[in-house]
């Protein structure tokens, strides 16, 4: 049994991946997950919208990477990739695109394996973001991603599950170090900046899943990109990141409580 991964499956506890699925309109969830989701939603009506917003940010970011020629993706914290998942977005644009999903939730991993059975260009790794070396090793073993070529590393709504004590900057540094020049890093991350009290209360509720959320500042989140070149428009509230059309942008983009950004590893950056 890998260290740090659960040694028992407790279906009496809600799972972040299944709550997320419920917010996206999926049925890959249980009563316990739905109860928590409804409770969160009743406290912060924005939250469901935040999750949809995050999903849309991810879709736009993946599209941008595809446009830049990226054809292999490492999606860490993928959850239950049912609705608007990366391999569908990617393979719709490039049928040869490869995607490796990584998640800590064994149910999400089992589900992903079943869903992706038969899709030879995708793979699933059961691992914890806090063990980046394990992620890289097991990804290597799948033989799907060529680490000598540029790839997209996707960390959508996952780094905020890593507390400061687990040194997220070192984790990011390890992941960046594994990528070839020309690679991209996509991060979306919850923040306390510009947020009302109920957002902060909801964050406390998240402790009832196995995963507590650490809200961080824009500067901290920008720091996760290291010396890579942060692309326009920078680290911004998610709807502001390259919207499909100006009308898509909400009147209050900060209400989603999360920043998104994309950076590229330019050779000169070292």
């Amino acid at each position, binding site marked *: *049994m890998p260290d740090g991964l*659960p*040694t*028992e*499956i407790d*279906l009496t506890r809600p799972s972040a991946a*299944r709550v997320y699925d419920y*917010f*996206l*309109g*999926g*049925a*890959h*969830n*249980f009563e316990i997950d739905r109860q928590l989701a409804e409770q969160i939603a009743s406290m912060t009506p924005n939250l469901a919208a935040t*999750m*949809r917003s995050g*999903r849309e940010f991810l*879709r*736009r970011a993946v599209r941008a990477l595809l446009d830049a020629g990226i054809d292999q993706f490492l999606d860490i914290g993928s959850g*239950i990739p*049912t*609705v*608007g998942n990366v391999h*569908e977005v990617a393979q*719709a644009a490039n049928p040869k695109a490869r995607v490796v999903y990584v998640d800590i939730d*064994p*149910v*999400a*991993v*089992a*589900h992903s394996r*079943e*869903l992706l059975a038969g899709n030879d260009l995708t793979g699933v790794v059961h691992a914890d973001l806090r063990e980046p070396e394990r992620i890289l090793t097991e990804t290597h073993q799948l033989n799907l991603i060529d680490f000598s070529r540029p790839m997209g590393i996707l960390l959508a709504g996952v780094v905020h599950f890593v507390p400061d004590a687990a040194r997220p900057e070192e984790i990011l540094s390890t992941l960046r170090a594994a990528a070839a020049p020309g690679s991209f890093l996509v991060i979306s991350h919850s923040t306390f900046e510009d947020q009302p009290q109920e957002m902060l209360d909801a964050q406390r509720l998240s402790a009832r899943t196995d995963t507590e959320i650490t809200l961080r500042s824009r500067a901290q989140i920008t720091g996760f990109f290291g010396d890579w070149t942060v692309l326009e428009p920078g680290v911004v509230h998610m709807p502001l990141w390259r919207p*499909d*059309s100006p*009308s*898509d942008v909400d009147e209050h983009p900060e209400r989603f409580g999360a920043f998104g950004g994309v950076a590229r590893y330019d050779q000169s950056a070292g």
Partner: protein
Amino acid sequence: MAAVPEPIGADVGRGGAQGYAADWARAVRRLGFVPLSAAETERLLLVHTVRLAQAVRAEPFTARPAEEVGRALVEAHLTEPRALEWALRALGADFPHRVLAAAGRPADLSERIAAVQGGLAAGYARALRDRTFAQQERIARSAWQARDEVEQALRDSEARFRAVFTGAAIGIGIAGVDGQIIDVNQAFADMLGYSIEELCQANVAELFHADDAAGMWDLYQEMVEGKQDSARLEKRYYRKDGSVVWTDLAVSLIRHDDGRPRFTVAMIEDITERYELQQRLRFQALHDPLTGLPNRTLFFETLGRVFDSAAPERRVGVCFLDLDGFKAINDSLGHDLGDRLLVVIGRRLAECVAEHGHLVARMGGDEFVILVDGGQDAVAVAQTALAAVAAPVHVGDQQLAVSASVGVVECPAEETTASELMKAADATLYWAKAAGRGRYAVYDPERSARDLARAALVAGLPAALERGEFVLHYQPIVSLLEGRMLAVEALVRWQHPELGLIGPDRFIGLAEETGLIVGLGEWVLRTACRDAERWWREFPDARLVVSVNLAARQADDPAIVDTVADVLATTGLPAELLQLELTESAVMGSAGEPLRSLHRLAALGIRLAVDDFGTGYSNLAYLRRLPIHCLKLAGPFVEGIRADGTDVAADHRDERIVDALVRLAHALELWVTAEAVETGVQAERLRALRCDTGQGRYFGAPAPAEVITARLRGGAAG
């Protein structure tokens, strides 16, 4: 995700359909999550708008396409209930006039719209139900699968653990924090001699014993309280049959997920053999192989422990014992018998003191030491030990009578250290030997201090000679007849840098013992002759003789004649102005006959005097034949004729002896010098007895050369 098809159908009002689809797309994107971009959403809904329009107008009419659109909406994840509500409402309200050209509207439009609404709702509901069933089934299956995988992994892990547990050569035992043993493997049970079932009835506490190493139980308690996570130590277990097994024990704590202590896991390895070997090696390292007694190392360890743990006032005693003449026994009877003697002595010593709890150790050779346990009389122990040694020893067919000498030291622990104690014991043993063997000596700090001072002087002598720390003083020898100073006796002093001026009585003996007297004596001779030559040159008429003492060891040295000749030659002193004083024993030499060199010395033209005459053994026959010029009467005879009236009879007896000695000397044609003349009365009576010359405080104390020079210059004052 289904690809979005191009809208088709020229019979549809394109502009109207597009506007309608755009509104629909905006609504679904506002109301729920759509995994498509706005343009994609709009394109998809335009297709469905056109299909619905075509369905309404189709002949014959069927609602089936509307059902398919309902299903397609679900498949595109447009499942937000309010988005369905919007779609159905819009179909009834805006759809006909916005999308359907007026010309193309069928007569039964409102029935057809209702049917299309119904069909779309039915298709949507059926698809949503199917999808929900499918997703619920899939997530449940995934959950079970994940659970299966975890369980499989646990089973694998359990199987691996079981294999290790049952097959391990080391013993493994698991207990709860209440100490109740939950499981042990066969190796654990075997090591302790119980069955697995028996041990599983037991509690860890039963495996602890009062004689376990200190702190072991506390360590276990700390562990079950969660203060320690692991421990490693050597522990002795008692097997079921009462025998002992020594183990290397490693204990680890296993905690609940929340950190509370849950189990302790003990792993034990049987190290009895290694332990016993270690004990044996340790015994060997600490015991003398010949006698089996504790050796020097163990003795010092024990002594160190006594000092470390003793209360300050507690007395610590040692008896340092050494056999007398053991080397002779060894040499004459052989080492084998010598060794057997040591074994017997060792055993006797151990037996005679063991009952009092004293430690007997063999320090090496024939040296033994007894550590006297606090409060007991070390002298009594020494006496017991001497008695034990004194009983005849039978080795082989020999009966040996041996004796030993013992140095006894006893003092409060706070006043000394282990090494000082042993140094004192060693010194005291030497005193016992020096006092005649077969006895004990008790340490005397004052004597020790004297010995030390003496040793320090001995050590300092050679350097003192090199550094010129010796000086000569001269004491006049005066004619009793006319009062003139005829000679001076050279007397050496040591100008010690720390102790000041030291008289010869404190170092001449040491110089003789160490042989340094030869070098010192030559320096005295040379210096005295140089001074005498100066006097002779300055005051030739005085013809002052210098009298220099010659120690027995110097006189015995064959080179002495050459040395004296060389001194005379280099200083230029006329030989007749040098007198050498020898004691009676020095005259006789070590060979039991007078020194051969006396004649050769006399032949140089110098004078020879016998010092301290009357105190040694004098062979008058030799005296008669030897080239002696002068006798110096020893102080005690002269002291006896002080005539202070206290003991008139004794006074007369001494006076008669001096009279006889003077007569004897004169009969042998020798001069007589009286030493230690203190008073004028003494001088007067010695003159009356016809003694030739006198020396002593009355005629002048020993003084530096300048004083003599001044006295010579004063002329008549001599």
